[in-house]
């Protein structure tokens, strides 16, 4: 089997180099140097006494600046956006301030391909600073969700967040911190938040922890005093993901390596198709598992 694979690879390589068909060459080079998948980024404002801001992004490579989020206020969490992987400067200005004015706060975001990030301004205004969190993308177990808490309530210097008749999600979390993700059975939980400092404040809310999803619970200062809870979905998936591979073919076009007349025929077919310019070999051509010409032709 391995011998026939390398023979197939050799055939493709010979066809590509000797006949120099552009489509074949393009496929081969695309396989050698694939460009990267984008990262996913969202922005948030968790500074209770800081007014609305505009947020700008500047790529280190290229350096063009554009406004990313407009009029982000305390408690806002933006939708995710895709971003070419790379390093960026994030800059914050008061809402409506000209892009030419000095940034009130700026920081660096390193975005890796395929990864997700939440970046935010946190703390009280006089200690305003930025954070970048990596958002989890690994699947929870069946029937579970993954949950973290961002504690952004200044009226609760320290707080616990607990699902009633369920797990403690954050214990003694200080204002301006976030917890690691933990597993919580999926469902709509009555979640309570209690400050551990004086004056005591507390709140509760029905929060949905979706199965197969990753959720962030945010503890905020309330609109009319006290504290309040919100949840945002970081990443969603199937409640029950399929297990393993996917069946998908009857084999009617599969090559039969055992057939005695297959190799000469395939070589002729490939050569002829390349010559007439009809071969479209897409995707990577790699030695381990080369794409074979099918018996049915292409």
């Amino acid at each position, binding site marked *: 089997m391995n011998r026939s694979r390398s023979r197939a690879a050799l055939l493709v390589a010979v066809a590509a180099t000797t006949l120099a068909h552009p489509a074949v060459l393009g496929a081969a080079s695309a396989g050698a140097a694939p460009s990267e998948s984008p990262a996913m980024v969202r922005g948030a404002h968790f500074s209770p006494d800081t007014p609305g801001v505009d947020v700008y992004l500047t790529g280190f490579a290229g350096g063009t600046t554009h406004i990313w989020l407009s009029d982000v206020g305390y408690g806002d969490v933006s939708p995710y956006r895709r971003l070419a992987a790379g390093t960026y400067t994030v800059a914050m200005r008061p809402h409506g301030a000209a892009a030419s004015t000095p940034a009130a706060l700026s920081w660096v975001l390193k975005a890796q391909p395929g990864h997700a990030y939440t970046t935010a301004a946190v703390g009280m*205004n006089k200690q305003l600073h930025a954070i970048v969190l990596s*958002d989890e993308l690994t699947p929870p177990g069946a029937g579970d969700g993954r949950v973290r808490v961002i504690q952004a309530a200044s009226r609760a210097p320290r707080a616990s967040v607990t699902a009633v008749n369920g797990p403690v999600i954050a214990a003694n979390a200080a204002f301006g911190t976030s917890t690691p993700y933990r597993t919580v059975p999926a469902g709509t939980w009555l979640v309570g938040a209690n400050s551990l400092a004086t004056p005591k404040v507390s709140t509760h809310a029905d929060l949905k922890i979706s199965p197969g999803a990753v959720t962030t619970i945010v503890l905020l200062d309330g609109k009319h005093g006290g504290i309040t809870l919100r949840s945002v979905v970081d990443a969603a998936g199937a409640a029950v993901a*399929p297990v393993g591979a996917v069946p998908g073919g009857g084999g009617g076009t599969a090559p039969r390596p055992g057939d005695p007349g297959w190799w000469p025929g395939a070589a002729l077919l490939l050569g002829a198709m390349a010559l007439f310019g009809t071969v479209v070999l897409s995707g990577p051509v790699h030695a381990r598992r080369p794409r074979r010409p099918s018996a049915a032709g292409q």
Partner: protein
Amino acid sequence: MGRIRPRFGRAVMLPAAAIMAGVLLSAGNLQATARWMSGPAPPAAQRAPGPAAMKASGRAVAGALSPLPGGPTGPAHPAPRSTRSAVPVRLIIPAIGVDTALEPLGLLSDHTLQPPSRWDTAGWYADGVRPGDAGPAVIAGHVDSTSGPAVFYRLRDLHRGDVVLIRQRTGRTVRFAVDTIETYPKDRFPTARVYGPRPLPELRLITCTGDFDTNAHSYLDNLVVTGLLVT
């Protein structure tokens, strides 16, 4: 439980300094200015790729962003509400001439995905993510029948950037662009990578590829094409 520990005061920071801090950061010298995670901070080398990792650098410019005069006033805006996409009814991939109805698929008793019932029609995993909603929506199709090509025969010919359209029952069409085309041996299928949670809408177009095991009547590999929602 770590507290926020600002390393900088409110002194004015020039943009050049911000860029310099960025260069230092990208060079691997994490200049973390605050701690935003509970528990003790891991060593810097472990911090960058970790799930709860924190890396940020920045400080406020004095006076540029004054505090609200009345102090904290609560959330600025109500929490947004999300709506669910309609059921997908058709898949169109112009680059490879695919235009197929979509049949709903479930899981078999061994929790594997039910194969589409027809060679020439693709199916979508109806207990999973709907195309257009956040997460990986799964669409499966046969590469061939027992006698010739089937609906996803030319899936292998797709390239990054090719357009994939999903028509929803409401008539709305959502547009995806191909990001990656990957081949996995079925006995080492990366379930978490293919089906794991995602922040934004994605498609997983899946068919068979590789060698055909004539004894098992099954191909040995899966071809997985990832599409990203175009907004």
